């Protein structure tokens, strides 16, 4: 990395299963684009216009590049970047892969804690913890934790928030 980070990195990584989930997401995306490009190859005849042949190859190249990016590069990079932590006073996360976002929310200002599980997440036994505050912008999301970890964290944060809440707005 060329420059030091503006703030410190949280210490804990996500579940390793998150990589598998991101790869699965990439596979679904690649499949969709592949079907579109495949349909173009099969259904649009070559003599329909001069632009068809270049478009075919451009489409194929796009699918290939997309597959490499979303299957091989992005999941690993994301896993390396994503970090989270619950400190004595706050919940702290780092997300993103190109643009990085650090979010810090004090437990005393937490209003609600949600645990959500998407379809893919259920397949991989993962869950997302979302911590909401009075601000529409101040929401912390810790994606793809192991289900028991997520439940434990949500429980812990909610209980501590109840004890230390001041004004919460």
């Amino acid at each position, binding site marked *: *990395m*060329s*420059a*030091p*980070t*503006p*703030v*410190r990195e949280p210490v804990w990584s996500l579940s390793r299963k998150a990589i598998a989930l991101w790869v699965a997401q990439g596979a679904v995306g690649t499949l969709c684009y592949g079907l579109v490009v495949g349909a173009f190859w099969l259904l649009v005849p070559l003599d329909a216009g001069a632009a068809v042949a270049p478009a075919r190859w451009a489409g194929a190249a796009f699918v290939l590049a997309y597959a490499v990016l979303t299957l091989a590069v992005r999941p690993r990079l994301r896993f390396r970047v994503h970090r989270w*932590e619950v*400190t004595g*006073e*706050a919940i*702290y996360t780092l997300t993103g892969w*190109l*643009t*990085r*976002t*650090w*979010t*810090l*929310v*004090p*437990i*005393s*200002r937490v209003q609600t804690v949600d645990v959500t599980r998407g379809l893919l997440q259920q397949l991989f036994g993962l869950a997302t913890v979302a911590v909401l*505050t*009075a*601000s*529409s*912008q*101040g929401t*912390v999301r810790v994606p793809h934790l192991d289900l028991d970890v997520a439940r434990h964290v949500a429980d812990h944060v909610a209980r501590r928030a109840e004890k230390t809440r001041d*004004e*919460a*707005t």
Partner: protein
Amino acid sequence: MTRPTARRTSPRVLLVHTLTFRQARSVVPVALAVIAGRGLQGSPATVVALVVGVTVLSLLWAALAWWRTSYLAGDTAVVLTRGLVSRSVRTVPNDRIRGVEVEAPPVHRLFGLVRVRIDAAAGTVASEDEELVIDGVLRAEGDRLRAQLLSRRAVVATEAAGRHSAPEPVEEELHRFRNRWLLYSPLVGSYLVLPLAGVGALFRLLDEVPDRYVPRPGQLIGSPDLSDGWLVLAVVGGALVLLALGAVLGSAVVNWRFRLVLRGGSLIAERGLLTRRHTDLEVDRIRGCAVSEGLGMRLVGAARATALVTGLGDAARRGQLLPLGPREDGWQLTDLLVPSPGTLQRHPAAARRRRLGRAVAPGGVLLVAGAVLTATAGWWPLLVAGAVLTALGVPLGLARYAALGHATGPTSFAVRSGWLVREHVVLQRRAVVGWEVRQTVVQRRAGLATVQACVGAGQGGYSAVDMAAPEVAGFTRAASGSWASALAG
């Protein structure tokens, strides 16, 4: 104390609703369509019958609605029951009431009535559903309701705080709108839009009217000679003058005799020429203030000051402390409510490079494309446009950089950004409910980061754009509680 009973609104509201065709409005488009379809070949008697019919229908409708509507301001909650066939009951507990607004639209004023809006917004995401409107009570009853609801709320608040002595309500006028400030309005975007919206509405109305009733300007004044440059100039000049007049007029209607009063723990704002509004803000819920200056306003030193209040619906309008006025007055008010954190710190030179780069980039792309086109096809206008845009980008980027700044003080902090509308926000330390630090790839290489303070008021978040990355941890720690030290390594 007598047990509160459910009451009806004043029967005079029937007249208001009949006059404004509130219920019959839905009939009008149908009637217009019928007229358009059949033509008005009938005698004037038909027209009279139609008007009378619609009026009677409207009165009947209003009467039914009035008869089925009742409200109850009890010890614990306000309940509004209404609905002709399907009944709806809306209950707002007293401790959830965030504000009470008494407004008197012109027709209501004619009959000595007011409309009471009770605001119970739960968060910053406000919607119409979160308020309860009692439409058409006598002015005295409206004031009584407001006083009763707000005093209850104050009791709840003092009980919660464990205090027993309620403070004496002393009234202090903070400031009063001066009519000469109306002259600023042609320089403010939102007021310039008002006459344009009026013109738009007029055109929509013309669209509804069948074609043969629309006069053709060509027939009336003959076709004008467009080759005459002076005529075009006069028309454009006249339109500009009209636009400016419209802006002043619109601003006068909204801001007429604006007054800000501090009474007890509340700020009370009164405003409006036709519709008179009374808005209550609890000082305790104010988390910060924003002073915004548009491009035109900066030329004449005008500004607008807004309070950032937690849990206030429609906060942009209701939170206004100074709708339009000299910058000094805006700052005086702001300093009174939130202590100033001192002068702003400039952002590093890398931030200036980034602003310049972003401002010049669109022009630069055009310039390159134009150069390619000139070389290949000999078509040069794009090249010129690109060069002009690139040149304009330089002052724009510098101005955008000059707007950036942040400051921290003992109890508050400030951030400033924006060029078209420059917004200087001063927030209390306790306002921060979270921090969000963002860094794009470009920012990472330039050693910059954008820090957003998440706040449960106003827009929900205010950013210090392109701050020097090593300063971020210190800034967040100084601008909020000890919990923010988790960001420092």
